[in-house]
C-alpha cells in the first residue's frame, strides 16, 4: 500500500504534534496489521480509514500489511513488525490476535500496541500489557437500536438478520438486534441465518431472498462482503436492508444510488473514529495504555447511520423513538444482552 507516501506529501500542518516522548528523535511510524484482507467495506476498511485519516491530519507515516486469511502467518507477521526498528506503534484488530499480542507486548516494552474490537488480559502479559491499549465496541448496544428501528419500521412483523459465521462477535450483534426488535413487539419474529463465510455475496443474496420470501421486510446484514448480496436482494424484492460497521449507503450513494436507497440505515461500528481518536491521544501523550475502553453509544463507538436515506425513509415518530432508545441505553435504563 502506498498510502504512506501520499500522507507524507501533504505533511504540512503537523506543527501541533506534541507527544514529547515519541516525536523528538524520529518521525512517528505506525503499522496497521490486518489479519485478513482489506476491501470488506466495513470492518477492516473502517479501521484503515481511521488510521489513514489520522496519518493525513497529524502527518505521520504508516504502512498497512494484509496478513491474509490463513492464521498460520499472523503470529509471525506481528513478530516481524514488532522486531522492526522502524515502527513505533502497532495497530491490529480482532480476538484472533490477542494471544500473539499478549505474548509479544512484554518483549518490546518501548513499543506501543493498539488492538481494536477486543481486549487483552493484563495478567497474560509479562508487563501487564502496560504498552497495550485495547478498544472494544458495544455492538450489542448499536444493534439493539437497529433492532428497535427494524421493529418499528416492519409492516409484516417479521425481520431478518444474516450473520457471516456463528462466532461470538457476530452473535453479539444478533443478540442486541433481536432484543431491540422484541422490545417493540415481543411477538415479532426475527429470522436468523448464517452465510458461512465473509466473501460469498451470492449466498448472502439467496439467504436474504429466502427471508424476504418468508415474509421479512427488513434484513440486517452482519456478514462483511457477503452483505453486498443482501442489499441486492432487498433491491430486487423491494424490501429494505440494514448495513453494518460503516455507513454503507453513503459509501456507494454516488455511484450506485438505487442500491444505496434500500439500505435504510447502518449500524456503524466506528472503528475509524476510535482509532483516529486513539492516535490523536497518543500524540497528545494522553492515551491510557494498559487499559481497555469499551465504546458504546455514549462514547460514539457505535450508532445508527442517520443519513439522507434514513431521514427520508423514517417517519418522525420513529425517529423520536430511536432517539429515546439511544437515550435509554446511554442512561442505563435499558441493559442490552450480550453474547460474551
Amino acid at each position, binding site marked *: 500500500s502506498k498510502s504512506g507516501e501520499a500522507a507524507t506529501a501533504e505533511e504540512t500542518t503537523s506543527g501541533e504534534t506534541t507527544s514529547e516522548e515519541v516525536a523528538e528523535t524520529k518521525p512517528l511510524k505506525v503499522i496497521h496489521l490486518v489479519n485478513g484482507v482489506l476491501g470488506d467495506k466495513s470492518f477492516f476498511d473502517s479501521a484503515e480509514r481511521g488510521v489513514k485519516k489520522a496519518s493525513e491530519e497529524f502527518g505521520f507515516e504508516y504502512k498497512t500489511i494484509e496478513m491474509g486469511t490463513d492464521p498460520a502467518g499472523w503470529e509471525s507477521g506481528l513478530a516481524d513488525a514488532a522486531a522492526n526498528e522502524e515502527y513505533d506503534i502497532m495497530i491490529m484488530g480482532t480476538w484472533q490476535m490477542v494471544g500473539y499480542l499478549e505474548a509479544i507486548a512484554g518483549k518490546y516494552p518501548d513499543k506501543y500496541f493498539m488492538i481494536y474490537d477486543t481486549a487483552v488480559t493484563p495478567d497474560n502479559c509479562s508487563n501487564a500489557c502496560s504498552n497495550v491499549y485495547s478498544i472494544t465496541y458495544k455492538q450489542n448496544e448499536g444493534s439493539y437500536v437497529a433492532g428497535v428501528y427494524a421493529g418499528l419500521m416492519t409492516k409484516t412483523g417479521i425481520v431478518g438478520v444474516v450473520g457471516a459465521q456463528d462466532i461470538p462477535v457476530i452473535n453479539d450483534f444478533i443478540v442486541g438486534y433481536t432484543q431491540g426488535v422484541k422490545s417493540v413487539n415481543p411477538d415479532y419474529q426475527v429470522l436468523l441465518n448464517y452465510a458461512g463465510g465473509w466473501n460469498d*455475496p*451470492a449466498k448472502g443474496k439467496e439467504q436474504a431472498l429466502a427471508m424476504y420470501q418468508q415474509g421479512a421486510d427488513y434484513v440486517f446484514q452482519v456478514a462483511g462482503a457477503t452483505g453486498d448480496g443482501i442489499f441486492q436482494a432487498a433491491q430486487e424484492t423491494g424490501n429494505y436492508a440494514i448495513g453494518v460497521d460503516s455507513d454503507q449507503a453513503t459509501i456507494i450513494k454516488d455511484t450506485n444510488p438505487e442500491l444505496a436507497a434500500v439500505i435504510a440505515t447502518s449500524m456503524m461500528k466506528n472503528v475509524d473514529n476510535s482509532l483516529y481518536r486513539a492516535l490523536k491521544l497518543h500524540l497528545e501523550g494522553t492515551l491510557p495504555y494498559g487499559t481497555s475502553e469499551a465504546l458504546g453509544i455514549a462514547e460514539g463507538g457505535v450508532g445508527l447511520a442517520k443519513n439522507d436515506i434514513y431521514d427520508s425513509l423514517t417517519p418522525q415518530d420513529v425517529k423520536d423513538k430511536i432517539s429515546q432508545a439511544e437515550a435509554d441505553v446511554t442512561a442505563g435504563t435499558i441493559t442490552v444482552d450480550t453474547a460474551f
Partner: protein
Amino acid sequence: MSINLVLKGIFSALFLASVLRISTALILPALGGLITDLSGSINISLEGTMLVSAFTGVIVSGFSHNVWLGVLAGIAAGVLFSALLAYFHLYLGTNIILAGTALNILASGGTVFLLFMLTGDKGSSSTLASGVVPTVNIPIIKDIPFLGTVLSGHNIFVYGAFVLAFLINQLLYHTKFGVHLRAVGEDPVAATSVGINVRKTKFVTILVSGFLASLGGLNLSMAYLSSFQRDMTAGRGFIALAAVYLGGRKPWGTVLAAILFGIADALSNQLGTLNIPSQLVQMIPYAITIIALVVYGIRNQQKLIEQTKRFQERELARSKSEQQD
C-alpha cells in the same frame, strides 16, 4: 423460529425459482468441466476462469456503460485465460492440475490487484455502477400462477444455461468435433491413428470450457449479482467439477447433479432460519451429495443382483416347465 414460515418458504414457487438461480451458477461451469473431462483433461481452473470473467465483465461494463460490451469482454477474458491453461498444459508440458491451480491463484490475486488499480478498492466493485444483463419474462408462461413464478423472470443466463446444456449435448454427440473430442478423451492413440489432432482438439475443448466457465462468472457478477467481489466464486468451480462426476459425465446428468445441489443449497437457506446449529444446516448440500453418491452406487449394485435373481427365476421357471413336459 417458526417452522411454518420455513415450510411456506419451501413449498413455494419462489423456492423453485431460487433453485434455478443457484443451479445456474453451477451448470455453466460444470458443462465446461464436463467437456474438458470427456476430452481427457481436467479443468481445475474453472474457478479462476469464472473469477476473471466476472471481474472483466463488471469492469468493462462499468467503465463503458455498455452491458453487452462487458459480457463480450468477460467472455474474451475467460477464453483467453483458459488458453493459458491449454498452452501451458498442451505445449509446455505443465501438469494440468498444477497449471490449473496456479491459474486459480493468478486469477484470485490478479483480479484484486487490477480492481485496486482501476477502482482504488480492494474488496468489491460496489462503488462502480456496472451493468446487469436483462431478465426475461416469458410471454404466456409468466401469467400462469405457479409456473410463471418458477420459470419466468429470470436473467438470460438461467435460460442460457439450459440452452447450452442442450447445445453441448448436441455438440458432443452429433457433431464431428464432439465425436473427436470424446475419441481423444477415451483413447488418444486410436484418435491419432485416424488423423485426429489430439492436441488441437484438447486445445479447442479447453477454450470452449473457458467460454462456458466465463458465462458462469458473468452470471455471478452481472446477473445473479450486480457487482464483483474478491473471490466471489466461493468454490463454485469445484462444486461444478463434482457435479460432472456425480452426473455420470453426461450433459443432462451433470445438469441434474447441479440442480440437486441447488435444491440442497436452497433448502439449507430456508432451514437456516430454524433454530438449528448453523454448522449442521450448512452441511446439508454436501451431505445430500454424498447420499446421492451412495444411493447411486447401491442402485448400480442392486441392478446386478436383480439381474442374477431374474436369471435364477427364469431358469427355475424353465426347469419347472421342462419337468412338466
